[in-house]
């Protein structure tokens, strides 16, 4: 029994294509070449059968042969760590990291990893070939910083004001609106559209809500995610 991409809902294919293609385009804080290169590191991290341990900087491991041409080694190390060892991250690590990488640029790195992790996981689960990354689109990042970025209590990262009125995962990427939009477009297509979240009976006609939550719970448990 095999699955082909034509068996996948069109809205889901579209959300993945949009997010994957954005990996090679200039973002808010990183250029297209940087984003693409960092995505390659994230792909390596999620696919490695024997990853580096969390305390080893991936860029220092010679046989990984990371392509580090456009983004800094620090950015590659952050991407590798989030992609492969997210549960081991601490506030102290975040604070040290954001002494080198601006907090908003850090959020965009998280978004790159989230995109790679979700698309690769979907393809792997269904034994579909992973998509190719498009060549990098030239151009500078927009560097548009929203006016109302504030510190949050429920996240390490800054968010758009007012802070802490929504769940921590909902506000986490708001300070980088384009990253936030891409990630939640995928969540709507993969899981439950935001406006349906409060309805325990909502279904696409394939899975019941409780079946979806059972799967969600098991994955979160496998990834040792406290949240």
């Amino acid at each position, binding site marked *: *029994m095999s*699955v082909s991409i034509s*068996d*996948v809902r069109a809205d*889901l294919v579209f959300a993945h294509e949009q997010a994957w293609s954005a990996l090679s385009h200039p973002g808010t804080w990183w250029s297209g070449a940087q984003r693409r290169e960092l995505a390659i590191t994230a792909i390596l991290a999620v696919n490695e059968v024997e990853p580096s341990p969390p305390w080893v900087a991936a860029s220092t491991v010679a046989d990984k042969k990371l392509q580090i041409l456009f983004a800094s080694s620090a950015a590659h190390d952050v991407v590798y760590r*989030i992609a492969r060892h*997210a*549960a*081991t*991250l601490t506030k102290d690590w975040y604070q040290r990291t954001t002494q080198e990488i601006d907090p908003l640029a850090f959020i965009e790195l*998280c978004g790159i*990893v*989230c*995109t790679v*992790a*979700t*698309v690769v*996981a979907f393809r*792997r*689960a*269904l*034994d579909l070939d992973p998509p190719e990354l498009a060549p990098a689109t030239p151009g500078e990042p927009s560097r548009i910083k929203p006016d109302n970025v504030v510190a949050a209590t*429920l*996240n*390490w990262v800054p968010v758009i004001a007012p802070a*802490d009125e929504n*769940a*921590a*995962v909902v506000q*986490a*990427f708001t300070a980088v609106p384009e990253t936030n939009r891409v*990630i939640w477009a*995928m*969540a709507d297509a*993969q899981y439950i559209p935001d406006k349906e979240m409060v309805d*325990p*009976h909502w279904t*696409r006609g*394939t*899975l*019941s*809500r*409780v*079946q*979806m*939550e*059972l*799967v*969600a*719970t*098991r*994955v*979160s*448990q*496998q*990834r*040792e*995610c*406290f*949240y």
Partner: protein
Amino acid sequence: MLSWSGTEQGLEVDLKNVRNASGGVDVSFARELVDFATAATEFDLAALTVARNKLMKLAGLAATVDVAAVIANFEMMTRLADSTGARMQTEVVADRLAVATAMGVDDVVSRR
């Protein structure tokens, strides 16, 4: 969310069994759903193929694709939560203490 959605639908959900990957939920294909989610988050491709084929046979192609989408979503959301230091409000944590204990979250690496 699992506990809440189960209660709302009048279904029995035993979180300790979910924790032990033994199904434990009074819903269709619980065992196969847990097996597929488990295999998809590990590196044993043979086990993944078996789990996917078993689910596809029982639940159908469209449902299996949607399960893969939920798996993918939580590969994303767990990284989003852990990388941004997401935490729940104190009162929410207190409300969910029993559920959290049943799921064994006190033991997970990312506890903070």
